[in-house]
């Protein structure tokens, strides 16, 4: 069936990315989850192939593709390994993208090429122990001192934290100015004042080195301020708008993989003398899964298409992220149900999909925050 929003370039892209992921990530996806291992050997290949700079301009070392292509890459990588889809989504959309959107020409020349080629990995450090859905309540500070900011920040649940070289730190440059005193400074790993904490022991996305990051009296040059002082939350929201398309595509990839595994198992497993697929109860589940995946796909690619058209896309992106993440949880749940007891075992991939799907309703804005965003857009 021809998909709307996709042209022949997108079709060829999907095929080539799928071939790469099945060949390189497929054989290790279960193992890197089990061992909570970041697969550098594949990450380096992805870097050479442009996966870390999907939308970055070619003159800055990127692949120069559009948002629909970005969603395709994230969906296809996540279909095989959601942990790696997460790594790419966060790196591309909330680390590299804000640098391209808000960075000066000089900053872009400094940071974009190594990020776009995957030579350095990016992270987005907003969340703190007491500031998640409410980013205006962060307590990190970056206080001006001569040519530097002195940064003190305790950031938690940082995706890519264990491997990130270039981190966007949200901190108060003017502690008296409330939400308007929050700015983004770029901190680079490699100094003693930049401390990477232990990796989180998470339910899913285990191959992604999610960690805390602490900066203690860390001196960051004033030239590392992204945008202007006080622009932090605006940068964060702009990054999260596009990041939502990535996470929606990630959820879609997990749901797609679960549908495929559910169908495969239903055809193969026999009970009461016939394959599961001959039982109407299972057919109902497959029908619901296929419909949810299809609806999520339409919403994800519509949001990407709207963004590529240059129109406001916040509503479409929020709806796509809300729907696709909820669909991923519903579809992975049904895939486990079809597998019965085996679906609860690590021997079967659906167990991993089930764990991986859950967080898509939480990060890059919870489902509840998304409903607030959507209601705000609809009600004005």
């Amino acid at each position, binding site marked *: *069936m*021809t*998909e709307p929003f996709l042209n*022949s*370039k997108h*079709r*060829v*892209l999907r*095929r*080539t*990315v799928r*071939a*790469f992921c099945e*060949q*390189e990530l497929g054989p290790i996806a279960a193992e890197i989850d089990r061992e909570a291992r970041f697969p550098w050997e594949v990450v380096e*290949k992805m870097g*050479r*192939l*442009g*996966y870390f700079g*999907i939308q970055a301009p*070619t003159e800055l070392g*990127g*692949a*120069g*593709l559009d948002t629909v*292509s970005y969603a395709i*890459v994230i969906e296809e990588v996540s279909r095989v390994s959601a942990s790696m889809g997460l790594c790419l989504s966060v790196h591309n959309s909330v680390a590299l993208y804000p640098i391209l959107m808000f960075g000066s020409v000089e900053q872009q020349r400094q940071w974009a090429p190594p990020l776009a080629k995957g030579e350095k990995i990016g992270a987005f450090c907003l969340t703190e122990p007491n500031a998640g859905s409410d980013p205006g309540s962060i307590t990190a500070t970056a206080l001006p001192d001569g040519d530097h900011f002195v940064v003190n920040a305790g950031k938690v649940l940082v995706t890519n934290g264990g491997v990130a070289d270039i981190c966007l730190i949200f901190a108060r440059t003017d502690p008296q100015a409330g939400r308007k005193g929050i700015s983004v400074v770029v901190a680079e790993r490699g100094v003693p004042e930049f401390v990477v904490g232990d990796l989180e022991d998470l339910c899913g996305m285990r191959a992604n080195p999610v960690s805390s990051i602490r900066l203690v009296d860390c001196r960051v040059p004033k030239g590392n301020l992204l945008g202007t002082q006080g622009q932090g939350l605006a940068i964060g929201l702009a990054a999260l708008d596009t990041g939502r398309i990535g996470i929606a595509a990630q959820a879609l990839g997990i749901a797609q993989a679960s549908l495929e595994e559910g169908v495969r198992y239903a055809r193969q497993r026999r009970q009461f003398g016939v394959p599961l697929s001959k039982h109407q109860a299972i057919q109902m589940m497959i029908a619901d899964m296929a419909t949810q995946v299809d609806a999520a796909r339409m919403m994800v690619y519509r949001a990407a298409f709207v963004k590529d058209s240059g129109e406001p896309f916040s509503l479409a992106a929020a709806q796509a992220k809300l729907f696709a993440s909820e669909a991923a949880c519903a579809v992975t749940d049904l895939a486990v149900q079809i597998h019965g007891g085996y679906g609860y075992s690590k021997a079967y991939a659906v167990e991993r999909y089930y764990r991986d799907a859950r967080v898509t309703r939480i990060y890059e804005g919870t489902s509840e925050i998304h409903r607030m965003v959507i209601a705000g857009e609809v009600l004005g």
Partner: protein
Amino acid sequence: MAFHAIVCIKSVIRAAPDGVGLRTPDNSELNPFDRPVLEAALRVKEAEGGTLTALSMGPDVSKDALAEALAMGADRAVLISDPALAGSDTLVTARVLAAAVARAGAFDLLLFGIRSSDSDTGQVGPQTAALLSIPFVGGVKRLHKTDTAWEIHRKMDEWEELWHVTTPAALTIHPGAYPPRPIALRGVAEAFDSGEIETWGAADLGLEADHVGQAGSPTRVTGMEMIQRERKCLMLEGEPQSQVDALIDHLGRLGAVES
């Protein structure tokens, strides 16, 4: 003369549930047996310099396969497409490709996949070579140029043959010989943004309508039937050791293992 390889590729049908496959974009892909051929040609090009032309005969949907060849590193892509070519058998396909190869300019190597994953004949490569009256070696595992000749290795049962071939020559590449490189995202972008796919019709190749397509084809597939395999289940009973003995005995009598 700079090295020039022409690789003939095919857009194949992915699935044909009732024996008939729809030629839609989503049901078509570059023949998997052609990918190692492109890889072989790219490696020779990297060693020798020169250019690589990808050539395909088929409906418009074949442009996706040619774009993939461009994304991998082909320099030029040509689609031979004409309603008059519909229904061509392997001989006519070879005739059309031979005419297209003649138009594509002087070349050193003309390369094919060993077969296609849909119609699966393996005839087009050797037939095209015969029509062009050039040497042909099939199932090539390795090739490289020495000062005096092209050395071509091919496996035959437990032996590996070494051929010296003069060019221009036609080869089919063994599917396991050259694992194809992954395609970079930028390669896909460039294939579509700056790559060009030339389209030639039957008239451009000087072919008359009654010599091509179904009208010009001496062979025709007139029917297809799914092969039904009868499956039997034999339950073995007793202790595990006696079950194993019975199984080996049974397989031995079937000739599946040495008894």
